[in-house]
């Protein structure tokens, strides 16, 4: 890559990494290596984030993530985690319907009632 391109990519870097071509080239190349790697890592990171969001959504209804997904698989519902997390944020009623389907598919879900337990504890304390 020529100098102009390097400096264009080095905008916003700190110290000499934005002014001096020797340092800037080093830092830009390293940055491009990181971005190559992180385009792959992004897929893992997002999946982890979606799982956390689904877990937060299902626990409002007293089901944990693992049991929820198990119920969905039993019912052959093939929504992926990206869609499920978006539903849990923006379509709470549809998400509740999914939780209900999952709960009836996997009766083990029925015993878990976390929100009410928490409420009871706060009452006692």
């Amino acid at each position, binding site marked *: *890559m020529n100098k102009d391109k390097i400096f264009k990519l080095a905008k916003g870097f700190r110290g000499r990494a934005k002014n001096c071509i020797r340092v800037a080239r080093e830092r830009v190349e390293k940055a491009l290596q990181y*971005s190559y790697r992180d385009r792959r890592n992004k897929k893992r990171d997002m999946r982890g984030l979606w799982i956390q969001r689904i877990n937060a959504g299902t626990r409002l209804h007293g089901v944990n993530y693992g049991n929820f997904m198990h119920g969905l698989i039993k019912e*052959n519902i093939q*929504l992926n985690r990206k869609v499920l997390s978006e*539903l849990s944020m923006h379509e709470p*009623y*549809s998400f509740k*319907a999914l939780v209900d389907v999952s709960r009836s598919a996997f009766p083990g879900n029925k015993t878990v009632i976390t929100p009410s337990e928490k409420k009871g504890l706060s009452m006692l304390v």
Partner: protein
Amino acid sequence: MAATALSFFTSPTTPKPTPPITTKTPIPRTNLTFFNSLSSPSPHKLTFSPLVTRSSTPEAPVIESEPAQIAKLGSEDALKGEGVFAVVVIGSRQYIVFPGRFITVQRLKGANVDDKIILNKVLLVGSKTTTYIGKPIVTNAAVHAVVEDQGLDPKVIVFKYKKKKGYRRNIGHRQPNTRIRITGITGYQNYPAVTLDS
């Protein structure tokens, strides 16, 4: 999920004579039944009072190159189908789609601009009062869309480097994509619904 995600074909009512695109896969039989269901209930809606149930009315199409039949229906029921959304599989990726909005998906090969697409792999349909959960798909449900643009994603610099080996590659890449505008969601009404109490 099979690789046969969608089937393109120009709609029979298009005014301009676009050549029919060769479908990669044979159109499933459900399409035929679906077309009947589209043509039969739509006059119903017009003859009934305009205050039919919200969930059953398709959204007003925004694209100006719509056939007259559907456009008339849309103007009648404009903004009635609000709140309807669907989860649809396009190219083995799942998208939440709303009528009237556009989404950018992976390049649909063989589709031309202004082609009409019918997407059959609908996993879930939600309206204000009911949710239709497909196991795994909502049978007969279809999402109608229009191809707006065959474009390219922003450029990605693919820089490969191995230290001490004298190996470096600098390649630019722009992933082809397709922008489609969702015009309506139909055909899901007969599927068993999960109705919400609240």
